[in-house]
């Protein structure tokens, strides 16, 4: 078979991608730095760093610390705001033949909505990924993502501002991830991405204080993969939306775990830091798998087949 003709295209609730490999928000900036390593046009999509209505300062340092097979980050969603994004970052990204998914952050429902309005006005995104892990300042700082009703509220607000695909990005710090997933589906999300980072911390044993200035940080990297795969598996059975799987993906095999568990697409996050070509390696490994195993779209969720078979047997 010709190496070029493997069809990896996939449609994520209206967002047509040429291939299912993306890079996760906050691990790829706005693309400029990685463009020095490879043509961004090879990616299915770029999920840009979270964009807020006004510039966010982020947290004091230290903002990161390494943990076993993982890392904590407490960047604090530092970003230069939506206007800066539209003026400085968007034009650069638009040069490449890839989809731009804007990760939207806010401290109130209103803020999320207004970011989307601004971007809509300039057609500055191909889709929106709503980061509901932000602290809801009206509700005392609890994360939108830890409450199905709050999550739905944000999704609805964004939904009403755009016809472009809306992806809700789920937080893993919940008892039942399917509850929030269902709430987001009902609120009009076109797709779901999961997972965001796990709330965690490290203590500096010598100084007897938390390592991170922010005390808490988000755990990402290979360490979390088994939990993330479980959540994708569960949500795949609970909702009828395409899923974007992420959490510790470093290789095509890791990505295939998510795909077989039910993800229609995947995003490479922390692995970008340790291997700048990680996303391309994931892509070529998936191509290879499709060559050997048949159509990409039939691979999605295929590990569930076994369980269905099993329950018939029992």
């Amino acid at each position, binding site marked *: 078979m010709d190496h070029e003709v493997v069809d990896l295209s996939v449609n994520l609730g209206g967002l047509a991608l040429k291939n299912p490999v993306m890079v996760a928000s*906050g691990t790829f900036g706005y693309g400029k730095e990685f463009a020095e390593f490879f043509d961004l046009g090879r990616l299915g999509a770029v999920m840009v760093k979270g964009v807020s209505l006004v510039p966010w300062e982020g947290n004091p340092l230290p903002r990161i610390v390494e943990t076993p097979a993982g890392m904590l980050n407490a960047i604090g969603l530092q970003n230069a705001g939506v206007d800066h994004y539209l003026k400085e970052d968007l034009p650069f990204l638009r040069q490449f033949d890839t989809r731009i998914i804007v990760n939207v952050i806010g401290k109130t429902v209103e803020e999320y909505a207004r970011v989307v309005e601004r971007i809509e006005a300039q057609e500055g995104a191909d889709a929106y990924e709503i980061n509901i892990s932000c602290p809801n300042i009206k509700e005392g700082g609890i994360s939108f993502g830890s409450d199905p009703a709050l999550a739905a509220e944000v999704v609805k607000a964004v939904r009403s501002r755009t016809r472009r695909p809306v992806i809700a990005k789920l937080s893993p710090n919940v008892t039942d991830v399917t509850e929030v997933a269902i709430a987001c589906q009902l609120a009009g999300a076109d797709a779901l991405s999961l997972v965001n980072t796990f709330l965690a911390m490290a203590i500096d044993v010598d100084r007897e204080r938390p390592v991170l200035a922010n005390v808490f940080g988000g755990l990402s990297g290979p360490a979390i993969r088994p939990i993330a795969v479980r959540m994708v598996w569960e949500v795949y059975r609970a909702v009828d939306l395409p899923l974007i799987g992420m959490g510790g993906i470093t290789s095509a095999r890791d990505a295939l775990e998510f795909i077989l568990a039910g993800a229609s697409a995947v995003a490479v996050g922390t692995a970008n830091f340790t291997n700048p070509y990680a996303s391309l390696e994931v892509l070529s490994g998936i191509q290879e798998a499709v060559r050997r195993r048949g159509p990409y779209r039939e691979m999605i969720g295929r590990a569930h087949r076994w369980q269905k078979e099993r329950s018939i047997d029992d």
Partner: protein
Amino acid sequence: MPGQYQLEIIDHRQVAPGHFELTLPQQGELARAEPGQFVSVLVRAPESFDPLLRRPLSIYRTAEDRFSLLYRVVGRGTRRLSQFRAGEALDCVGPLGRGFTYRDLSPGAKVVLVGGGVGVPPLVFLSQKLLQIGIVPEVFAGYASSEHVVGLGAWREAGLEPVVSTDDGSLGYRGYVTQVFAERLAQGSVERVYACGPRPMLAEVAALAGRYGVDCQVAMEEWMACGIGVCLSCVTKVQEGGANRWARVCREGPVFDARKVVWQGGS
């Protein structure tokens, strides 16, 4: 432009207790590295994800076909690195960051280098480049003690005679390198200062240079996750056009104009 390279280790040796020099072949863009730039090195075993992150190390010196890193073992990453042997491959991303600006200087310019501990490596590389353009820098190097002395040999080979100080007086002047440096500054005629070392040392060097109105460039360090400018973990506050903003040490730095760095509460 940085690249990712698998480099076969040419030589790897202890140069002082707990300090190693690692020699690698020049390849691709690495050959165009400037002093102050760094590489980020994968220290984990193949197929292992722990420790996860790369470790940033400055370029210490270069030759036609090779370059080297000089590092101190401080934790498990550098300890693991120290176990790599000649002949093994090392995964390096680089050259990264913005190095020192020096090509604007005229031959014979009066330049002072101030290095503290493992802040020495980039200054050795800088000395090489300065000598090539006809500048003989005056070097001040401070260490915790004589056991931690690194880079002196390289400087001497290049014909330079660093002024050494140690915190415990076990070699050269007793005290901080900033004290001897301050005395030199007071004598005047310094056009530019280049410094690398711990943040408190840099702050002091910057303050002194500022007092005497001397140009000063500092090479900084912060904890890095990506090393290429996308994660925002390594930021430091800089002042620009009256306002403060976060600059990424790995990309906008590690070398900054000392006047722009916000030394108090800037990290």
